[in-house]
């Protein structure tokens, strides 16, 4: 119950931040522009709209996740509003969980708005929406899973470091997480047993964002493979649990001087 209270409060606080509106507006703008790009080259209008549209949702979602994620805990500490909350019958894990859920809610709403804009653009282009267009909800769901992980990463860093550094680290992890198969390949190609093992460990440790990227498939009207639904959901769930666990462990030791 207290977790829900903190979550709702966090949601309301995030939603009031102006940067959110700017980013969402930008995303919608880009989606609108995608229609324009498509009309330039014949035959690929739909593909370009879908690719650009979903990529915008992903990229801006990432920016939103980072921007509001890094402030999550560090702002409370910096403004010392946290003294108040922690002196109430709220345990530190409850606080962290509530913060995370509030942020997740914010992301959900934002992604939903951007996805709605995307469907609007699709409708505008084709003047109709078919059952086959439901597949984009799947792509959006996977993007949301990705963002949930990113926000978790931002939360962990927010407990350790300053907002700026948190943003940098989170972004770096996101980029690396997209190239984990290549990282592993590098390690294997090196023909060095130690390097190979290290790169293997890193492959399983780092978040594999590549799993969630189905934009190319849906753009070319391919179906999202069935096993990905369960696999990705489980992966995201586990990874988020790990991140929250780390955040809680770190936060419990934190002193507020």
């Amino acid at each position, binding site marked *: *119950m*207290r977790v829900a*209270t*903190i979550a709702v*409060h966090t949601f309301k*606080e995030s939603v*009031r931040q102006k940067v959110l509106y700017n980013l969402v507006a930008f995303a919608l703008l880009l989606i609108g522009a995608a229609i324009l790009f498509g009309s330039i080259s014949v035959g690929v209008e739909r593909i370009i709209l879908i690719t650009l549209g979903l990529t915008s949702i992903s990229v801006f979602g990432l920016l939103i996740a980072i921007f509001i994620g890094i402030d999550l805990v560090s702002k409370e500490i910096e*403004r*010392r*509003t946290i*003294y*108040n*909350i*922690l*002196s*109430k*019958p*709220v*345990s530190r894990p409850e606080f962290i969980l509530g913060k995370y859920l509030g942020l997740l809610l914010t992301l959900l709403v934002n992604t939903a708005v951007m996805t709605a804009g995307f469907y609007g653009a699709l409708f505008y282009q084709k003047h109709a929406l078919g059952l086959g267009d439901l597949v984009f909800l799947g792509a959006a769901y996977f993007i949301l899973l990705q963002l949930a992980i990113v926000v978790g990463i931002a939360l962990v860093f927010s407990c350790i470091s300053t907002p700026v550094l948190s943003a940098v680290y989170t972004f770096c992890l996101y980029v690396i997480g997209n190239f984990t198969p290549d990282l592993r390949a590098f390690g294997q190609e090196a023909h060095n047993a130690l390097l190979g093992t290290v790169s293997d460990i890193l492959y399983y440790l780092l978040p594999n964002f590549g799993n969630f990227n189905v934009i190319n498939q849906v753009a070319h009207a391919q179906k999202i493979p069935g096993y990905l639904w369960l696999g990705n959901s489980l992966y995201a769930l586990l990874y988020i649990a790990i991140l929250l666990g780390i955040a809680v462990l770190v936060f419990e030791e934190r*002193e*507020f*001087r």
Partner: protein
Amino acid sequence: MIMLALETIDLTKEYRLGFWRNRVKRALDRLNLRVEAGEVFGLLGPNGAGKTSTLKLLFRLIFPTSGSARILGKQLDDISVRCRVAYLPENPSFYEHLSAQEFLNYVASLFGLSVAERRRLGELLDQLGLFASRNVPLRRFSKGMIQRLGIAQALINDPDVLFLDEPMSGLDPLGRREVREVILRLKERQKTVFFSTHILADAETLCDRVAVLHHGRLQGCGELNTILCLGVSTTEFLLERPSAEVITELATYASSVIRTGERVRLEIPEESNIQGALEIILRRRTKLISVNPVKRSLEDYFLQKVGASDASQETASAYDWS
């Protein structure tokens, strides 16, 4: 069995400073306090004495290096006790985007208060003079208003024990009086109030017992009545435009002579000398404004405990003559 509202046992807090974390600073050194239920207890000391550290330790914002403490008989990591106590930090800050009402509602929901109980919130705001500004976002609150809101949020759960860190800071005399009233009302309802301050006058008027902290160590602890009766009392004479000869004659009796404008204040330590001084004054037809026994004040006690050399630096700024 008298329940102790607060009991600390050798509570110690050390900070590790320096790049290599090799320097140790003792913010609190084996603090032993016992606060009984229903009393108003003042924790006094200059800035940096360890008052805020003590309160933060009690609410697990920082963790003790050694020692322990109990609030209402429960250990510090027992969150359940937080339902019955309240904390107001020094220079509090609250969520700027919320209004006063929204903020109190938020805190109330953290306590799990029902809707019926939340109706009290309006009264609470009214009690502290904030009812008119209940829908104003907190970023537009003045320091005094924030302080009063802090008191309000501390009272939401009708706590048995209140821990206030510098509750009067930032308040004008009117605000201070309001807070004083609040504390006295709480005392009437047999609540315990534990507050830290460096404003001695407030402690004098409110506290049953005080403890003096300096450099993290307890310098002394006791009932205010006892402290105030301690020591030799002097008598204060206030004269208007005394002649120089009068001053010279009285100077033999007086321990201090201070001239402020047209008035001269004399302190005559020995009771036996009062008669002689009065005779001199009357003989010379000097205008006598007042004669007052000067009780040993908290200031004196404070100064003596803390040490005059230290005090001159810090308490000069800490003195509040209002």
